[in-house]
């Protein structure tokens, strides 16, 4: 198991390094079109061939990795910050504020995650620039993903509030803000960090699903979901290299699963 975990860390590290600077690794830009050679099979110049408009598939996969792999943590960070604030507030304040935040979290959790995303995505403009579609997709993930971690944070804060060390700090006259910053924050931070790592693979998978449904990152910017759309109407048995984004996705999510065993990635 230790070896498998080390391999998983190595793989995630390698993919992250490639994703951080795709310009170094990709032979071409993601939108460069070689119109004389569209839809070619793999060759030395284009290891994964070219797509219908003559773009290098491998280069697009490398750039797509940047979009999928770097923006998912950004969205997870956003949802964890929101969860920390709202969950912490609910746990600390109690009463009406607690009930309101819990009811809002219940409302968010009562709808299937993908359905919730679909509704919100439909309410936002669909015909937008690629950069705006990236921002919309990941802001949406970040903003809508607060409910589950917020419940965990709330439960932790409520438990901490009645713990002995908080009681002692209060008895010694510790002020609420100091109590929050010096006593509660260090204890809640590991919980939020765990929620962050759980959210990252979920967001990667969600972006892929949205991309495959045509509601994710807009062309010509590549993402794993957008690249997998190429599978539509085409048999992968005749062109198995089209499955390269799926294999990379399975390896990355599988690595996260190894590192975060016992967690579920429901999409």
């Amino acid at each position: 198991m230790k070896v498998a975990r080390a391999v998983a860390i190595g793989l995630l590290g390698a993919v992250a390094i490639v994703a951080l600077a795709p310009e170094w690794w990709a032979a071409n830009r993601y939108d460069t079109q070689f119109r004389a050679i569209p839809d070619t099979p793999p060759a030395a110049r284009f290891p994964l061939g070219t797509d219908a408009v003559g773009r290098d598939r491998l280069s697009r996969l490398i750039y797509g990795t940047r979009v999928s792999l770097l923006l998912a943590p950004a969205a997870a960070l956003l949802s964890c910050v929101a969860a920390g604030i709202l969950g912490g507030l609910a746990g600390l304040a109690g009463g009406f504020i607690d009930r309101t935040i819990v009811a809002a979290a219940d409302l968010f959790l009562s709808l299937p995650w993908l359905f919730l995303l679909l509704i919100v995505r439909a309410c936002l403009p669909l015909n937008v620039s690629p950069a705006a579609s990236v921002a919309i997709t990941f802001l949406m993930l970040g903003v809508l993903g607060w409910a589950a971690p917020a419940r965990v944070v709330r439960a932790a804060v409520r438990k901490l509030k009645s713990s002995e060390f908080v009681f002692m700090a209060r008895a010694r006259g510790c002020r609420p803000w100091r109590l929050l910053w010096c006593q509660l924050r260090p204890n809640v931070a590991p919980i939020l960090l765990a929620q962050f790592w759980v959210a990252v693979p979920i967001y990667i998978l969600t972006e892929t699903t949205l991309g495959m449904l045509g509601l994710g990152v807009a062309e010509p910017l590549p993402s794993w979901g957008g690249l997998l759309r190429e599978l539509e109407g085409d048999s992968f048995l005749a062109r198995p290299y089209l499955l390269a984004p799926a294999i990379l996705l399975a390896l990355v999510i599988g690595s996260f699963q190894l590192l975060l065993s016992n967690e579920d990635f429901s999409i």
Partner: protein
Amino acid sequence: MKGIFRQLFRMVGLVLAAGLASAVLVRYSPGALVDQRELNQRLSEESLADMRAQKARNSNVGVNFLAYLRNLTHGDLGYSESNNAPIASLIADRAPATLRELGVGLGGGWLIGLGLAIPAGCFRRAWMYDAASSAAAGLLLSLPAALIAYLCLMAGTASGTVLVIVLAPRIFRFARNLLVQAYGAHHVEIARARGIREWRILSAHVLPETAPQMLALLASSVSMAIGAAIPVEAICDAPGLGRLAWQAATARDLPLLVNLTMLVTVATIAAVMLSEMAASREASALL
């Protein structure tokens, strides 16, 4: 009885809140007060003015939502512009296909997921079986439902079967962890030492003890199935509610989405409510 009323009250509150929230989203979404028909140059100034006045009348969220609820009591859910049909008839047409799919998906998913989890929990020395089944579940969990749907479509699999493949690993993983924990309990070890048969240990000790968590898993599997039905139906071209929701999202048919939101909220909250009630009954029976 009091508990049932409280749960029903909570359910109605959440459904109304979901409806109102989606109505607010629809009202304040970009372009909500613009009608595409305004681009039609053959329309006279009077017709355009009428259309704008109608849109302006519809801009009050509260009034609109109350009118919607009033119409709902008469079975009128509004009109879908993208499908050019009443929403009630669209839902009635598509619901049977989705219900069939969900039935097959949940039934098959539970049968396979729980069926594979029981030996993994029961036979602790069968580590190879446990590793192989966990690895297979892990692989399927690493792929989005849309991709699994596409791969199954190529293999000529029906959409209900795709849901089985999507749900089974999720159910397996939760159920396996619960069963491993339950089989490790002291009283189970004593029962084994006394020579009680495995099926008896399973039915009398392990399953009743894990029942509350299993019921919670059942409720969340309903939510998972509804969520997975959207990409599965969209990719497999199945004429169900999931595909209708996807089409409504791509066509920005927001009234249809509001209705589907309320329907999905009712289904998921009802599943959670029933499982909570069954779990509390099971827990009180154990005590």
